[in-house]
């Protein structure tokens, strides 16, 4: 039973006791104090009910907003469409690139081992091989289009996630143990991968470093 209802019942009971025309002054005093206590309790429980009610309204509104934001994120679309399609496109890029490279290298290897005894035949062979090499270079157009699709999907996902994080005030959790271990391994084994826009250290600079003795290299970092 809600607190306000209990307080109301007590008050009603007190009213009926008072209305019974009791003559004992001590009992009247006790009843007066009980009345004050009941009024106080009603005020207390009333405020308690209101704050809990307000709290629930606030939680319900937060849940509704979260549900709307998650819907805006469209996680099913990301999981079932965008990520699988992007993965398939990238796999196709790898396959197409491999096939084209394979074909181009085979043509080049055949040419390297061709005998130029008869110049006319040799020239015809070279011309035909060059045409096939050029044809095989068309993989770049397809791969470019596939990669563009992947980039578009990634930007789409990035925008949705960024909007969600910003609206919900999400802060990144700490990295998991597994992620920390992998980052530590990458760092320990210097696994940086290819640099953007060409080698970070050009071959001439690499050669200079290789020519230096270890003390000289160490002194660069002192």
């Amino acid at each position, binding site marked *: 039973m809600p607190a306000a209802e209990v307080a109301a019942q007590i008050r009603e009971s007190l009213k009926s006791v008072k209305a019974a025309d009791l003559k004992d002054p001590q009992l009247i005093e006790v009843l007066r104090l009980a009345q004050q206590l009941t009024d106080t309790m009603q005020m207390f429980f009333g405020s308690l009910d209101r704050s809990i009610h307000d709290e629930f309204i606030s939680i319900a509104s937060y849940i509704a907003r979260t549900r709307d934001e998650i819907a805006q994120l469209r996680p099913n679309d990301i999981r079932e469409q965008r990520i699988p399609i992007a993965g398939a496109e990238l796999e196709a890029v790898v396959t197409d690139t491999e096939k084209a490279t394979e074909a181009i290298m085979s043509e080049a290897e055949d040419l390297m081992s061709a005998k130029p005894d008869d110049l006319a035949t040799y020239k015809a062979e070279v011309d035909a091989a060059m045409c096939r090499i050029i044809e095989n270079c068309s993989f770049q157009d397809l791969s470019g289009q596939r990669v563009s699709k992947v980039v578009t999907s990634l930007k789409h996902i990035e925008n949705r996630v960024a909007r969600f994080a910003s609206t919900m005030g999400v802060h990144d959790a700490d990295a998991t143990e597994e992620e920390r271990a992998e980052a530590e391994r990458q760092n320990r084994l210097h696994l940086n991968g290819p640099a953007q826009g060409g080698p970070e250290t050009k071959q001439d600079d690499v050669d200079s470093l290789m020519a230096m003795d270890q003390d000289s*290299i160490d002194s660069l970092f002192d």
Partner: protein
Amino acid sequence: MAVEMTMPILVVDDYKTMVRIIKNLLKQIGFENVDEASDGTEAFEMMKKRKYGLVISDWNMEPMTGYELLQKVRADEGVKATPFIMVTAESKTENVIAAKKAGVNNYIVKPFNAGTLKAKMTAVIGDF
């Protein structure tokens, strides 16, 4: 002393295409006795069974990287003297220095050409 052109060379890379490119370049230079491995673990096992005149290794491979292979080779009495060239897209200065500290004989940054490979091989194993 001139380099023996029939000496066995071990090419270590997880990309078949890159192995094929390096083998072609080696063939162009005159070396045809070339074995291949797809990571450091396989390469080290092969090195324990056959004496190679040169190892040409990529850096970024799984499960054992070229950097780990280099460290393992230099720590093993049986194969520690094998000349080792790193051929890699890892082009940070820290990578070059780490490789040098670990005992690499030369370092080639991808992409590279036959001229660069020949020059570095000459610097490591001598004229051929």
